[in-house]
């Protein structure tokens, strides 16, 4: 049997290059670097937006100018120069396509390389995809099926044109412009994103999905997603991303807003695999994301995330449990390797009666990476019978990495029941020995153990996505996940 030890694995992880680091040469139209009111106006004009939207952006920009970058997260990085970034970049080929055949073949090849061929997705999974390449939506599938049900699924810039009253009513209601530094920046300059509306009582027949990629050198991506599930509806939304290898740091500041009305349910899954930087910690994407969902009465929002990429991650998908009996869930696997840093977790704000929340967070750190869980569970004084269960487990590989847990628990109601548990451990020698003894070699044993460790979360991913998630986990921890 080959002598594959944890040291070998560590060595392999160290030298493992980012497989998906390639660069598609698509002519892009890019704005000059820098950010000022004119740029904000220009973005808005470019997208042919109504005046209220332009003003909304300008308002956000005004707030952003006054704000400073948050320092409290347990991450250290060189602050991006916000004046050295281009805030708009769109592929230059025809803006709209009627069918997939018209899509730039080079672009299709890119997706194929990533293993997310549109055709395959279309046939196998029944996934309707709103593919986003550098901010502009270039292909939308299954629109017809969705339209029959009355489901609106399109890019947010289209939605601003076609359903301005819906966008105007809901945008910024969950994540206000002035919520935080990056949310304000995003509100001012967001280039595109997805918009989704599920009408009353409709159960969305397929998983909705968007793929994000950063493709143009020096462009930051500022996506804005708005998902509205009307009374009694159900939708499962997938978001996944990979980015090409690049030396300079790229900034990604997205905002996702979810609104689950009475009895509605939203399941939001993310696989994030932006370029994490190379083995020396050079390059990599800065991922500063604000994600929040609002639950009305009896509604449910479930966040699932697999975070394997990005040099720096700053991300806290949250649930505001406003309505009585509403439910919030958060399932997360965060894998960091080399010099990656992740500060991620969730906020569960219990406002309504009988609200429940579950937090399962699994952190795996290897190399010289730092992995932090930061979460808040807040029970307001009116939230009778609120219930929370949190579990944060960390797995360390090597003694140069770190795992940190920062749970904040604030309870103001006597009927609250809160449990929080956290553990940190490494893969036990006894566990590996047990597997070896039964004829499983060390590599497979590690794979088995890591798989078992993250199973609770992987199980929560939609079937169609689980394969992709596995694939992406492999990139970060090859040799340890089978």
């Amino acid at each position: 049997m080959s002598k594959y030890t944890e040291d070998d694995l560590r060595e392999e992880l160290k030298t493992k290059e980012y497989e998906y680091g390639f660069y598609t040469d698509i002519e892009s139209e890019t704005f000059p670097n820098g950010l000022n009111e004119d740029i904000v106006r220009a973005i808005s004009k470019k997208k042919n937006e109504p005046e209220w939207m332009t003003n909304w952006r300008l308002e956000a920009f005004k707030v952003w100018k006054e704000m400073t970058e948050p320092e409290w997260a347990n991450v250290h990085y060189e602050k991006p120069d916000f004046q050295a970034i281009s805030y708009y970049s769109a592929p230059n080929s025809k803006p709209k396509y009627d069918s997939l055949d018209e899509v730039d073949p080079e672009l299709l090849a890119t997706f194929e390389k990533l293993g997310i061929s549109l055709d395959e997705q279309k046939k196998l999974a029944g996934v309707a995809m709103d593919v986003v390449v550098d901010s502009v939506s270039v292909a939308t599938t299954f629109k017809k099926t969705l339209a029959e049900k009355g489901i609106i699924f399109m890019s947010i810039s289209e939605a601003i044109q076609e359903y301005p009253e819906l966008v105007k009513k809901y945008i910024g209601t969950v994540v206000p412009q002035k919520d935080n530094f990056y949310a304000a920046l995003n509100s001012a300059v967001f280039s595109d994103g997805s918009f989704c509306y599920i009408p009353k009582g409709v159960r969305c027949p397929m998983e909705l999905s968007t793929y994000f990629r950063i493709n143009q050198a020096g462009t930051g991506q500022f996506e804005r997603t708005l998902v509205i599930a009307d009374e009694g509806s159900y939708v499962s939304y997938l978001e996944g991303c990979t980015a090409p290898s690049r030396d300079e740091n790229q900034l990604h500041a997205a905002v996702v807003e979810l609104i689950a009305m009475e009895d509605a349910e939203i399941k939001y899954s993310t696989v994030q695999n932006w370029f994490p930087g190379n083995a020396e910690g050079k390059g990599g994407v800065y991922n500063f994301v604000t994600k929040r969902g609002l639950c009305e009465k009896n509604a449910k929002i479930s966040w699932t995330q697999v975070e394997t990429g990005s040099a720096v991650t700053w991300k806290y998908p949250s649930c505001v449990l406003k309505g009585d009996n509403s439910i919030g869930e958060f399932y997360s696997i965060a894998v960091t390797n080399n010099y990656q840093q992740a500060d991620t977790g969730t906020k569960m704000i219990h406002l309504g009666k009988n609200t429940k929340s579950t937090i399962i967070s699994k952190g795996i750190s290897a190399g010289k990476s730092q992995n932090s869980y930061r979460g808040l569970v807040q029970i307001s004084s009116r939230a009778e019978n609120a219930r929370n269960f949190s579990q944060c487990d960390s797995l360390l590989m090597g003694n140069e990495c770190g795992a940190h847990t920062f749970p904040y628990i604030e309870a103001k109601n006597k009927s609250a029941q809160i449990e929080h548990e956290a553990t940190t451990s490494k893969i036990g020698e006894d566990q590996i020995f047990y597997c070896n003894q039964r004829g499983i070699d060390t590599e497979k044993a590690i794979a088995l153990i890591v798989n078992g460790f993250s199973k609770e979360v992987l199980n929560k991913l939609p079937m169609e996505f689980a394969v992709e998630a596995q694939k992406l986990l492999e990139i970060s921890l090859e040799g340890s996940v089978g």
Partner: protein
Amino acid sequence: MELKEKLISSFMAFENTVNVDSPIHDIRINAIKRFETQGFPTKKQEAWKYTSLNSVLKTDFSVFPKDIEALDYKTVKKYLIDEIDSYKIVFVDGQYASHLSETTHDDIDVCLMSSALTKAKYKPVIDNYFNKIATTDGLTSLNTAFSAEGAYIYIPRHKAIKKPIQIVHFSTGNEAALMLQPRNLIVVEENAYVQVIERHQSLTDNPTLTNSVTEIFADKRAIVDYYKIQNDKQSATLIDNTFINQKNDSNAKVHTFSFGGKLTRNNLNFYQNGEHIDSTMKGVTIIGDKQHVDHNTLVHHIEPNCESHQDYKGIFDENSTGVFNGKVVVEKEAQKTNAFQANNNILINDKATINTKPQLEIFADDVRCSHGCTIGQLDESALFYLRSRGIPEKEARGLLMYAFSNTVLDSVKIPELKNRITKIIANKLGVNIGFDL
């Protein structure tokens, strides 16, 4: 004048009372400078996110108390554990009360900080240990700047004390409002053993602010057993800063019983500078009516093969606030660390608040670290069981709450102290039962 300015200007007056040529005085001067730049902590600081000193700092505290009137033993007897034979270091309004105390220089030193800081024979110990592990934050620096009086305990190697040491601070209310800054140093050498009981007590309802700093050094195989009883009047504010430095195979335990006081902040820091160290910190907090108790703990695992255990229980009634902020840091050299942290809370009133933040910061891979925290209520079925057997509801609740906090009381090694705390708990829960059923 704000308290900060008042303290800084009174430092000059303070200098007249101490020997400015001693090396300690440089430490004092640096400390007051640090306090000048840092000031009192505010809610903007992460460590003080849930505790505000603003309302306390509005009071016009006097920094130098007038001469004390002699307290007779009868008035203070009930605040001492008098059932046992013990050494006593008693302070009244910050000044040593010899007639209430019982100190010793027989083999061990149980005496005063004021003599340790001034007499030549203590100089080597002071040079080695004084202000070596106290942090440099505003409050601790303030104490360092004004450090003059407190308890000095030195247990040389291979000595085990035969009776516990009680450190008691009384405030008489002679002043309308009084600020006290006791400074304690406890050095326990190789194979030595010490038991300490500390208490702060106001005798009237005049406001007091105590900013206490205790440095404890546990050398190889030393055993330190420290108990803090906090059951002060509603007008008292206590900021307790305790720093414990441990060496190989030493064992240190700190039990904190917080039942009284308006605002209590316990900063408890353990530094494990050696292998096979065992650190334990436990606490019971039972508070109500506008009280605020904040436990801020740190265990710094620096070397391999060490253990730490934390167990904090809290019962919060009326509009009280409880804060627990526990931090465990495991350095990358500290392999095979076993760290455990638990914080369990019961809220018995909707106006009560509990904020808890158990943190882990781990840089070593071969460790076993876990923490758990819960917030919940008394088990209704257990309550029903007791009531169905004829125990009235109030007593049944009392029994359940006592049982809840019993894991902490279990490890109290002095039976008389345990009895006393049990009585305080019964009193606090408003029941008249002995719990020793």
